[in-house]
């Protein structure tokens, strides 16, 4: 096996798309500015030249229309990857996503499945304000019939897409905007990964930090800080928000007896609430303290950096919450 190579999250996504296009003639990428512009976040840069206009398909501004077209095409034998630039715009396509993509298999009694992948950018941190910055992946995780993936690592950016494309049902992939530029090393053999389980990214014994997507790295930084205070934090990367891997999560918390959920989404009714609740349901008698949540503040994301940052989970808050669970 050759050595590791330097790459970025963005490049991993691009490689995954390229590989899928090469592997399966039914795969195509469709969305606003994926072609001539090169992708709003430059993920698909260069792919138009390589694969042509049919398979790297620029769409008009019609989120409902092209998402619905993706559903129809999936049903009729293609394997579309639909890109929606930013999660806030996906609301324009929500009817198609919930009332059709998530529902058709059931509504048709199993006759029509929808093997569709929808990718979108999510999250704050680039000062894009209140119509471009939200974290709605946890919200989508409420919908039966959907699978919700949140790749945080390079391996997952590289590997989740193909597995998602092989899924017979609709899968949403949320890419945190702050991760695109993130670099690191990856094995040249990196390929498809499973999309079922959460992953323990750091082992620990005193408290479990549960995070995903952009917040994972804040949780890891917090664990580092906690270590300096002689607190051993385990960090679990949720990876998949629907269906939640309750077993892995509960096993970790059963061991540490304390947990902090970190979620950039708004607190009330966020995925953090579901995780807290499941933990209470599964390991109530093992808990030594109430589960803490460090979440996005319930405000549309403000433009100025100081307010935007104040609205997001930050390492010191995670550290403080973890300490609270230990009575410190």
């Amino acid at each position: 096996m050759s050595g590791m190579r330097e790459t970025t999250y963005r490049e991993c996504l691009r490689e995954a798309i390229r590989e899928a296009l090469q592997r399966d003639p039914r795969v195509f990428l469709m969305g606003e500015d994926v072609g001539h512009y090169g992708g709003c976040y430059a993920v698909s840069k260069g792919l138009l030249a390589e694969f042509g206009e049919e398979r790297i398909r620029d769409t008009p501004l019609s989120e409902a229309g092209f998402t619905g077209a993706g559903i129809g095409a999936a049903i009729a034998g293609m394997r579309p990857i639909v890109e929606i630039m930013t999660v806030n715009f996906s609301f324009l396509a929500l009817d198609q996503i919930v009332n059709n993509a998530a529902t058709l298999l059931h509504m048709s009694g199993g006759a029509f499945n929808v093997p569709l992948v929808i990718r979108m950018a999510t999250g704050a941190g680039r000062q894009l304000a209140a119509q471009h910055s939200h974290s709605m992946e946890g919200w989508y995780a409420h919908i039966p019939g959907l699978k919700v993936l949140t790749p945080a690592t390079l391996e997952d950016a590289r590997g989740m897409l193909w597995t998602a494309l092989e899924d017979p049902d609709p899968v949403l992939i949320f890419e945190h905007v702050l991760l695109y530029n993130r670099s690191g090393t990856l094995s040249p053999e990196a390929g498809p990964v499973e999309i079922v389980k959460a992953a323990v990214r750091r082992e620990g014994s005193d408290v479990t930090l549960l995070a995903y997507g952009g917040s994972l790295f804040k949780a890891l930084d917090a664990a580092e800080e906690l270590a300096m205070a002689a607190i051993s934090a385990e960090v679990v990367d949720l990876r998949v928000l629907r269906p939640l891997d309750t077993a892995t999560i509960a096993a970790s918390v059963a061991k540490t007896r304390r947990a902090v959920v970190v979620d950039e989404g708004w607190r009330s009714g966020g995925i953090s609430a579901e995780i807290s609740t499941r933990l209470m349901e599964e390991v109530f008698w093992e808990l030594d303290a109430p589960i803490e949540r460090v979440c996005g503040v319930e405000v549309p994301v403000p433009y100025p950096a100081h307010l935007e940052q104040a609205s997001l989970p930050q390492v010191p808050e995670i550290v403080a919450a973890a300490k609270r669970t230990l009575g410190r």
Partner: protein
Amino acid sequence: MSERPKAEETTLEAGEDFTASRPHLSRAHLLDLLHQMLRIRRFEDRCAELYTYEKIRGFLHLYDGEEAVAAGAMRALGPDDWVVATYREHGHALARGVPMPEIMAEMFGKAEGSSRGRGGSMHIFDRAHNFLGGNAIVGGGLPLAVGIGLAKRMRGEPGLAACFFGEGAAAEGTFHESLNLAALWKLPVLFVCENNQYAMGTALRYSESETAIAKKAESYRVPAAAVDGMDVVAVEAAARSAAHAIRAGGGPQFLEAATYRFRAHSMFDAQLYRDKAEVEQWRAKDPIARLRGWLEESGALHAQDLEEIDSRIEAEVAEAVAFAEAGTWEPVEDLTRFVHSAAARRR
């Protein structure tokens, strides 16, 4: 129907070629159209009755009066084509060939129904006939049809997607987005607008600033035709000509069929929004009576033909009801089956 040749004058046989750009007006073909429309009418009459017995529940939207549209348009479609319809889709499903017993069982909510009873009247699906529902979100089916057209084009497959929707749907954003996409990408999609003058209780003049729906297609450069939706042969002719152009690679086509529903929007509708005189005027154009009248006049329909048709339909409907009655309830343990394909396929 004056300009149409008399049935006797057509010498062609009934053996149909769906790709022909014009209908074969053989006697057999016309009798078949009559049969199809009557089949839909009688089936739905029975449904309405079964609704009062609470065998069928939920919303039930009858196609009563509009049969010529599905019966005519479906003649232009072959096995590779797809159909996307609405919650008012019994007629489309029947005309497309979805077996009546399965449709009826679906209405009953039985596991033997075309959607295993999960969908009911508004959600009839059938993979064997490329029948993609049964969509109860007004305008929700149009993007799906675009996607099917896109898949066909990209896969180099023959066939087209026919999408039926009401004139009320023309106001939805998805109408706009779908027509543009289909035209921009020159996709094989046949848009069929069933303009029955009302969206629930909202008359067309309250919903559209431009009430000539076919005109709207122009602003997407989609060729459009308006047709008398109470004349089954006219519908068939228009649909054939449109489908022919699509199959020749010309991109989407649009058909507006002027029609009327004789009954209420659904079973919960006091029809406060229209007066009886209007309904009577339209009833006088009943597509079934019209074709029958014309066939009789021209001597092509004999009392015994009609009797035969009637008895075939009666038997078919009876069989469908019996099948539905005999159907089984899906076990409650299977409630969440069909949320994901893995579980759906497990047995």
